[in-house]
């Protein structure tokens, strides 16, 4: 096992781009090599050691046995865990945009909140957020027709707008509320929202979206029946029929009349 702990040396408003901060990128490196890693602070190319204090516990290890701990406010640090394939990242505070984008394996645990584009186009692995998540969780990039394809994202707080846009696979669960248009153009992913949201499943063709709280249903969803899931009664709709969609929208019955 190897644990690498990073602590910010100062707080920045200008964002840091740190796509190299993954178990894949750090597992095999010596401290000196880590210190010399390239990062970007705005338009300045800089080195890891100029922005973060590094503490390493354990020898170089396989990716799967490597944990990166982010201790402090990383809300301005973008792309952490981008394309990671294994191992673990634990953020004790907030984490910036694009965390876990394109990741294919491993775990990211965020004790604070996550920025926008969390798990964008992820393929596998899991992300767990104890606080809130920003906009476009598990979505695609601009112009992409396929967002998240696999893995799972759990947000215990609230999520922003356009949750899981263009999701093609994998699952997202939000315990709190989600902003407008969750699961837009869903092409095969599973989304569940514990709280309220607005206009879920626009242009979805496949997959499933369930909403525990209040919501507004788009015109293109057709009521099918009522189903029991884990002790709750849900109204089941199919849609979005503007796209001849065969997606499933489940609305918890108890909440809808409230």
């Amino acid at each position, binding site marked *: 096992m190897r644990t690498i702990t990073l602590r910010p040396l100062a707080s920045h408003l200008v964002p840091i781009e740190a796509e190299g901060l993954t178990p894949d990128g750090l597992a095999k490196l010596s401290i000196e090599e880590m210190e010399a890693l390239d990062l970007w602070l705005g338009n300045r190319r800089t080195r890891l050691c100029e922005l973060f204090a590094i503490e390493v516990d354990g020898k170089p290890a396989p990716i799967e046995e490597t944990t990166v701990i982010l201790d402090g406010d990383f809300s301005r640090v973008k792309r952490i865990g981008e394309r990671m394939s294994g191992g673990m990242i634990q953020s004790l505070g907030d984490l910036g945009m694009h965390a876990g984008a394109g990741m294919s394996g491993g775990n990211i645990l965020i004790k604070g909140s996550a920025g926008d584009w969390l798990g964008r186009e992820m393929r596998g692995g899991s992300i767990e957020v104890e606080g809130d998540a920003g906009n476009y969780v598990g979505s695609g*990039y*601009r*112009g*992409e*027709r396929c967002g998240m394809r696999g893995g799972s994202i759990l947000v215990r707080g609230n999520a922003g707008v356009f949750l899981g846009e263009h999701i093609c696979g994998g699952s997202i669960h939000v315990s709190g509320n989600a902003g407008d248009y969750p699961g837009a153009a869903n092409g095969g992913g599973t989304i569940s929202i514990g709280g309220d949201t607005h206009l879920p499943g626009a242009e979805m063709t496949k997959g499933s979206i369930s909403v525990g709280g209040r919501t507004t249903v788009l015109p293109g969803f057709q009521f099918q029946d009522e189903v029991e899931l884990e002790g709750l009664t849900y109204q089941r709709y199919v849609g979005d029929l503007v796209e001849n969609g065969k997606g499933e929208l489940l609305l918890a019955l108890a909440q809808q009349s409230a």
Partner: protein
Amino acid sequence: MIIKGGVVYDPANGVLGEEMDICIDAGAVAEAAGGPTIDARGMLVLPGGVDAHSHIAGPKLNAGRIMRPDDGRIGTEPRRGLCRPCTGYTVPNSSAIGYRYARMGYTTVFEAATPIIESRHTHEELEAIPILDKGALTLFGSNWTVMECVGEKDLPKLSAYVAWGLRASRGYGVKIVNPGGGEAWGFGSNVKGLHDPVPEFNVTPAEIIHELARANERLCLPHSIHLHFNNLGKPGNYSTAIETLDLLKDIVPSRDRQAVHVTHMQFSAYGGTGWRDFESKAPEIADYYNKNDHATMDMGQIIFGSATTMTADGPLEYANARLLHQKWSNHDIELEESSGVVPLVYIRGSPVNAVQWAIGLELALLTEDPWKVLLTTDNPNGGPFVKYPEVIALLMSHKRREEEMAKLPELLSKRSVIGSIERELGWGEIAVMTRAAPAHVLGLKEKGHLGVGADGDVSIYEIDPREVDPGSDPALVERAFTQAKYTIKAGEVVSRDGEIAGIPQGRTFWTDANVPEEDMARLMASLKEKFEKYYSIQMSNYMVQEAYLSRPVAVRAGVEVAQ
């Protein structure tokens, strides 16, 4: 500059693999020269590459870029050395277009279609492309004035309009896309065949093509008409192709060149009655070309993977978008044209795409004379131009084709003859298809060869044609053509080992054709009326102003030149 000791292929001058020196003085090939020496011993030396049909600038390109940020991200290269940043794969930014062509050894590229009224945009983008010499072909095939002149059977007036339209657009030649179809698409329909009258105009596509070809020769334009057939992209359309070619047998070229250039023939060599029985009719087309000498073509080869289709054939793009459930952009242009842009992916597992792939290669391999077939992908319709080296390798190596076919559906062998073709093109034939023939087809006398007086555009590849057998080593060929050892433009090294070494501003060719004053006067009367009643801009704001061409080269043509 002296390029010493290379193995030179200059088929236009009958040079096929001779070890010789090439001298460049004052930007042109000369008998002798001083200056730096480039040691090209053991390397292949060719004239700079010429692409006669590629979509590199103008409204369609930007429409593609704007609707495809996903494509933009594929080709990202940061600012480095002399190079500005690059983006894109099928729809790169202008800088990337210049650098990437130059890295492959190309120095001249012609934009395949510009609508007159939006040509300012085309020239703004052409100017933004570094290094390359370029030109643009002007769209005439669904133009109201053209159709009216054809209807009135007034060839002098039509010729005057073509001359005026080339000047207004600073265009080089006459492009015709799905003639009449663009106008029909203005109300959402199309023309169904050569003899289907254009709604409201009572002329047929056949008449438009034939009269524009006559006007083209009356004006003695450097290039022939450049034709995108009706019914392009539809199963069974090879009969339209042959019928159209027959229609033009009586056209007498005014210069030493073809009477018609057919572009991206691959998309017009389709058999079958639908996509289920879709099959190659490339053998029939190649047979026609082997028996007739009035036409040339370019391949329009497809490349498996991502493409962005863009064409003035508006109804075709709508059909593509519906069939593939894809993003669709359309842009109809008042009194002149229509156009569309649709991204797509050519998939090895798709029988239709596999047959399309085979057709392009069959056309090049079954047509005996390489001077009749230019190597293109109809960039980026069949795939991006950066894949030309792959096409070269496929043409030069039967083994390479067999490797590819092994990945394709078995049905391919029933729907095409590609598997039975053993021909492997040689270095000289590739030099013809990528240099000599495109220059000749376009009528660019100083391009595509290395004779004294030719432009000092040379590409040098790190491969010795005396040592390498392309048939058994296609990977070496592909690698060599992907990155020229040197690309030389007008005597300046612009690329070396893939690094851009110089960024000259290229020239823009356009055709300045004169017509008798009385013809022009008659034309002006009808044009004036069109601007007053129908155009949404004023006539005085229509012409591309001189400010848009920093290094123009006006090629003289016109009725007087013809006489």
